[in-house]
């Protein structure tokens, strides 16, 4: 059975259906890219999967358990962890303590949590900022911090919401490399992104959303050649 199964997932806000009966089955250790125009429901889908908002209809099954309606904390503890498109650091804390908040999940002692946090920080290469107040980080640093906190929970599934947005190309390459590593280490990734080069380089399957619905799903090369996808999102120039 697939690791993450989404059935008929729907979310309506007063008159507007942001996500409309979406069905997806994500396999263990898969890298699934998700693209679509703004307002297609990508972020809402993540918020539904991670429990920030409750669906109007449908269900989410993770690792054989129905997690529909679980609190965000419970979902995260179960191993389904998201990052935020707009970075949300704990601003009064240093980078080290930000990540230690996540590693505390496994370690009661502050010392052990910080030790483990430092390893994660090394891994995302935020080493120069260990003791910096997180509020002072540049955008690229905040993106890495988002990633570090999520990784620190040792998730089985990562929901990455535009981790490359706001970065210049030189800053993107190392993060793309890092995502490749994370995936190679066995983490299942759902990757919402607008930077098509990264989406194509990393995704094993590609989901295109438009107006809250699945527009196409399948092999990335085939999907981007689909005329409906070109019309809805990519535009005629993309080839």
């Amino acid at each position, binding site marked *: 059975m697939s690791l993450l199964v989404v059935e008929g997932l729907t979310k309506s806000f007063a008159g507007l259906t942001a996500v409309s009966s979406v069905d997806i089955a994500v396999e263990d250790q898969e890298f699934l890219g998700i693209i679509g125009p703004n307002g297609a429901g990508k972020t809402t889908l993540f918020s539904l999967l*991670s429990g*920030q908002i409750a669906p109007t209809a449908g269900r989410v099954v993770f690792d054989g358990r129905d997690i529909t309606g679980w*609190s*965000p*904390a*419970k979902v*995260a*503890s179960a*191993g389904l*962890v*998201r990052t*935020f498109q707009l970075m*949300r*650091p*704990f*601003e*009064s*804390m240093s980078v*080290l*303590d*930000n990540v*230690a*908040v*996540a590693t*505390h*999940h496994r*370690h*009661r*002692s*502050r*010392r052990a*949590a*910080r*030790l483990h946090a*430092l*390893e*994660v920080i*090394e*891994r995302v290469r935020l080493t120069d900022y*260990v*003791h910096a107040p997180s509020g002072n980080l540049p955008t690229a640093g905040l993106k890495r911090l988002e990633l570090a*906190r*999520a*990784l620190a*929970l*040792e*998730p*089985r599934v990562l929901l990455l919401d535009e981790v490359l947005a706001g970065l210049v190309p030189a800053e993107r390459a190392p993060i793309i490399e890092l995502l490749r*590593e*994370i995936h190679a*280490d*066995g*983490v299942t990734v759902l990757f919402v992104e607008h930077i098509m080069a990264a989406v194509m380089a990393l995704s094993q399957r590609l989901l295109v959303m438009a107006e809250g619905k699945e527009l196409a799903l399948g092999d990335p090369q085939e999907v981007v050649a689909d005329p409906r996808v070109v019309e809805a999102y990519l535009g005629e120039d993309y080839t």
Partner: protein
Amino acid sequence: MTAPTTERTVEVRADDPRLKDRSTARTYVALVVVLAVAAALPLVMGEQTETVAVRTLIFAIMAVGWNLMSGYGGMFSFGHAAFFGIGAYTDAYLLVEHGTSPWISMIVGAAISAAAGTFIAFLCLRYRLAGAYFALATFAFAQVYLLAVQNLDFLRRTEGFNVPLLPENSWWMMQFEQGSHNYYWIPLAILGLGLVGTVAFVNSRQGQYVQAVRDDQVAAASLGINVMRVRLLTVALSCAFTSLAGVIYTQYYFFVGPEQAFGSAVSVNAIVPAVIGGIGTVWGPVVGALVVGPLSEWIANVLRDPPAFLDFLQGVAGLDVAVYAALLIIIVLFMPKGIYGTLRDRFRP
């Protein structure tokens, strides 16, 4: 389930210098030094000064309790009179009606306060009250307690309780001859406990969690933190500790009535030192209490016996609140992080 992400993890040695927490170690050392110096003060203080010092300590204990929930927890309480009052009345009632030791009353009062605070906070958080609405709700609850006490026969309505005088000194009953230094050392020890407890809590897992929740509730929840649970735990600690100040108050002044225990001025007394000293810092409430304690004594003297050019103030009530308000405005304008918070940021490397 194996942890898949550890494979490429860089090994960090346990003695990595970047893991040294020098600032916490320094805070503990400073605490020991300050408490030792403070403990020696009665040997050189006059009796009049010592009265002011005890008043200052009571302010500091309340503010340290308030600071846990409102400073580190980000849940601004405008109703800490409720918990001070529960402590003061638990002690008065148990002592007068049952002859119970104040030490026992501290435990009972702290437990009742923690339960009452948790209940209030649960309702507020359950219905998503935040900021000014949360503060107003806590204020309303404190007022409810005030009215309840004023209308309950077994709590003697508006009459209050007088603590019966004992013929001899007694540690067990926390009663000593007038001017005894024990009246200073006991609240000092409680304050010391509160400060050490604050540092330990802030550096514990739950303490880190509640600060994360204060900074960004959504992000904290998405990292697996049970937001409600950690907030209620912080509220319980805050309310329990503040109630100890109420017990000290009753024991020191030998009288407690509804207004002294549950009046809104008492809630202000818990807030002002912390705000003046620095919210969400270990030392802020203490620094603030050192300003507010002597100041309140001075105001009380001026009102009792004003100098000639101020004789229009004779018998005017509420001057203390007016002075606090002016002080708060000045602090908020020029030192938004409080006296200690601002100085710390200026001298931090």
